[in-house]
């Protein structure tokens, strides 16, 4: 027995009520629940509600029948917890971040070995080196601007439809923010090493930016890759 469009919508709303707020988490749960409910209704001859409750328990959620005396009236009902769905989302979050970290190193390796990137990196280093010979402060500014370009380009993707409520997009954004914080923390930690008698030695800061250039570049590549996949799936969902 196939569920109607309204019943599928009901299941989707039920998931939203159970705090499954990311659409890319919901899509997998929705398909599983709908398939299981259809199967149970056809083969076990049970109602839609009974089948849904059965699947609800299967995910590790709790269903407790309760009775509460309220004055002369005895109220009874069914308490449903969403602990299973919470675990599902938490586990998925952990695995996505593991997947992203793994993909990051694969991309970094591929990028460092590609001739086009080698040429790009060489040009970047030469540009910084030449500028430093004339104006060290300008060289630092050039390095900073070059590193900021991928960060600015990310805004192009952030405001796309479906990005805000996607777990995949959120996790890759988080990885990126942690990377930026890590950069800042390193610079802050070693700031005394760059300063001599109150004068900042730009060579070390520029050197640091030159070193992290491939890492920032790959971070943007991963961001773009994940957000493009998210966009494709969202388009498929809304088509």
């Amino acid at each position, binding site marked *: 027995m*196939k569920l109607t*469009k309204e019943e*599928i919508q009901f299941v989707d709303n039920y998931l939203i009520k159970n705090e499954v707020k990311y659409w890319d988490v919901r*899509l*997998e749960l*929705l*398909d*599983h629940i*709908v*398939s*299981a409910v259809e*199967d149970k209704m056809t083969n076990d001859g049970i109602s839609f509600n009974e089948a849904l409750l059965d*699947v609800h328990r*299967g*995910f*590790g959620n709790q269903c407790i029948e309760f009775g509460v005396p309220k004055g002369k009236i005895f109220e009874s009902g069914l308490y449903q917890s969403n602990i*299973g769905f919470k*675990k*599902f989302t938490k*586990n*998925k979050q952990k*695995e*996505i971040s*593991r*997947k992203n970290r*793994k993909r990051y190193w694969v991309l970094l390796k591929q990028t460092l070995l590609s001739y086009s990137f080698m040429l790009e990196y060489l040009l970047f280093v030469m540009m910084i080196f030449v500028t430093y010979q004339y104006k060290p402060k300008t060289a630092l500014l050039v390095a900073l601007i070059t590193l900021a370009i991928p960060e600015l380009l990310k805004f192009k993707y952030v405001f796309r439809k479906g990005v805000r409520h996607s777990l995949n997009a959120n996790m890759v954004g988080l990885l990126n923010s942690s990377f930026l914080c890590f950069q800042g923390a390193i610079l802050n930690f070693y700031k005394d090493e760059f300063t001599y008698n109150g004068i900042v030695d730009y060579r070390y800061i520029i050197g640091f930016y030159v070193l992290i250039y491939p890492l920032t570049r790959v971070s943007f590549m991963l961001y773009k890759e994940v957000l493009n996949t998210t966009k494709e*799936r969202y388009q*498929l*969902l809304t*088509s």
Partner: protein
Amino acid sequence: MSNSKLYKGSLTTIILKLLNEHDKMYGYEITQKVKELTKGELKITEGALYPALHKLEAEGLLDVEVAKVDNRLRKYYKLTETGTKETVNKLEELAEYIKTMQALVNPKLA
């Protein structure tokens, strides 16, 4: 998994083996296939299946394909090249485990 904790350690091997035999499968299909093959003896719960699938995906053993089916999106899992190689290793490991257990439990048959 409802029947026994003994099956728990073999869950990833079961998933890999099924995906090795089929081009691609979705979550619910895997649970049903296991139920059918074991004549209802082994039931994989949703709470056990999905963490295992997501872990295998993160490890790069599974790839994901999304398709629209009956007004909703369906996530299909399929083996990657590394996944196919890992399936062979995992099955060998499992066969070895069964052999060892047999030697312990029933030495006459081993």
